[in-house]
């Protein structure tokens, strides 16, 4: 058994994932305490999504260990009850809620389904909790009867967040969860996520390619490149003081006032 730090909600140690000859993730270690928020930043192919999927239990690490609240996640052969217990610890929100929500299911039903599976709530108590969840994410309870198609992108992402929060997870893995949204809606979802974290002490693992959103969501940053962690620290340390050339290149790529796009100097890959 790997050693467990008391109080940590997530401890990932020496994660490595290979697909054939290709190493997607190489020796990645992450720790999260309850209510903390960690951003994993990198470009396409940096291994950030594979790391997220391993932590959410969607992918088996080739080597390395994951502890969620001190427990190892169930393997592919685990019993249903074990998987359900694991689901209460970690939930995932994807980039495109249109493909992650069932398009034939009313969003209220998709939330009550989760409540039926994971809680003892029945009848009106279950409906009341569903309504409460919709309100928590800023949806109108009357929208419970809507199908994903009739909701806007921002509303769908709110519904996906409500569904993930239904089991009261300790850790929410957000994989590019605001990348597909318009700026005004993106700001709404980021603000919503901050409020939820303050209220519920849920921890976030926030996967993104855009360093610009990180100060608004995370306390700590891990920068990944080609499967490895190349830089890490608190958000302020990394954004203001990092000397790592790759982190600097990422920071310089974020458009802002007075910014001019520049061709990247050829860095050895």
């Amino acid at each position, binding site marked *: 058994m790997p050693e467990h730090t008391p109080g940590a909600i997530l401890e990932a140690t020496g994660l490595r994932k290979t697909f054939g000859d290709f190493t997607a993730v190489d020796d990645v270690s992450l720790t999260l305490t309850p209510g903390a928020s960690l951003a994993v930043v990198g470009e396409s192919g940096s291994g950030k999504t594979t790391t997220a999927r391993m932590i959410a239990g969607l992918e088996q690490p080739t080597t390395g260990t994951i502890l969620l609240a001190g427990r190892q996640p169930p393997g592919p052969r685990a019993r249903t009850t074990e998987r359900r217990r694991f689901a209460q610890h970690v939930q995932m929100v994807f980039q495109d809620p249109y493909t992650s929500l069932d398009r034939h299911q009313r969003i209220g039903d998709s939330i009550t389904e989760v409540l039926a599976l994971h809680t003892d709530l029945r009848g009106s108590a279950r409906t009341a909790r569903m309504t409460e969840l919709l309100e928590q994410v800023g949806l109108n309870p009357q929208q419970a009867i809507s199908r994903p198609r009739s909701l806007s992108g*921002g509303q769908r992402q709110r519904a996906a967040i409500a569904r993930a929060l239904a089991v009261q997870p300790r850790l929410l893995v957000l994989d590019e969860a605001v990348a597909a949204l318009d700026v005004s809606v993106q*700001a709404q979802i980021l603000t919503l996520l901050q409020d939820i974290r303050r209220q519920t002490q849920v921890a976030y693992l926030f996967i993104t390619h855009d*360093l610009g959103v990180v100060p608004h969501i995370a306390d700590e940053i891990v920068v990944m490149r080609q499967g490895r962690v190349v830089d890490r620290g608190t958000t302020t340390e990394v954004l203001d003081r990092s000397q790592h050339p790759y982190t600097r290149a990422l920071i310089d790529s974020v458009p802002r006032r007075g910014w001019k796009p*520049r*061709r990247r100097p050829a860095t050895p890959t």
Partner: protein
Amino acid sequence: MTGTHALLEVKNLHVTLTGDRRRRTVLHRVDLAIPAGAALGLVGESGSGKSLTARTVLGLLPQGARVEGEVRFDGRSLTAMAPAALRGIRSHEIAMVFQDPRAHINPVRTIGDFLTEGLVTTRGVRRAVAEARAAALLGEVGIADGARRLRQRPSELSGGLLQRVMIAAALLTEPRLLLADEPTTALDVTTQAEVMAIIDETRLQRGLAMLFITHDLALAAAVCDRIAVMYAGSVVEELPSGHLSDAEHPYTRALMASRPDLGGPGKKLTAIKGRPLSAFETGPGCAFAPRCPDARDTCTTQHPALLPAGSGQAACHFPHHPRAAAGAAERSTSDA
């Protein structure tokens, strides 16, 4: 805008589309002018009508579309032009780069076929000559081994490389106007910076005019001379890029405030309440009124016209910027 000799002029553009047996307005009123060699950023959220504006310029609207108003290119009316002449404009004078390069390139043909097709079939350039020009142009957009890339197929190239191929394709016909519709939205920020740098450099070298469509104000400001902000099918503000920080329209200011940036952890993100409206949902008043922090009674009943305000034009009954609140009072009394 002087409007005397703009390369592209869009005047009073109003477009309706038929769908589900209903006729819906998708553009209420769009006025734009781009002088030769200048760049205009058309900024707005999904559904604001910015892509449709570009498609209307090229005559690429779906069947059943009804276009009112006028689009003039170099003095000629594109809206009144015969299809054959419009094809000539599209193949020689105006080029377009789209958001998703994979949706606009034939996946089974080589990059070389794609790049040289236009030159060989419509210009009668010899294939070897066309290939040499294509390879040289790939070098210009930052693809070093052009000759090898010409033999590859789209699936062998990354998104960033393929978008550079699309830019090269747009430049090959030596157009005078480039319509770039969210060319970097699907790319990582680092690749975005590089692709934008390439667009900016090649544009300036060639004196090419550009209509740059994006939802990102900061990105538009970095590569454009002027910015036009669209909301619910209308241009609501038009101003020089350098004056964005003292924008007159509350929507422009709200967009600026809701954009996350690296302004330090103390900087708070201000979200705009509600959702963006579509053009067909708008009522008689200002389309932004339901979300506007400064909305008054007039705003819900009267449609604001695009009038000179600050350093540009704004469609707002009470334009102002925080540092000049006195100006708002003046305008409101003159309107009353």
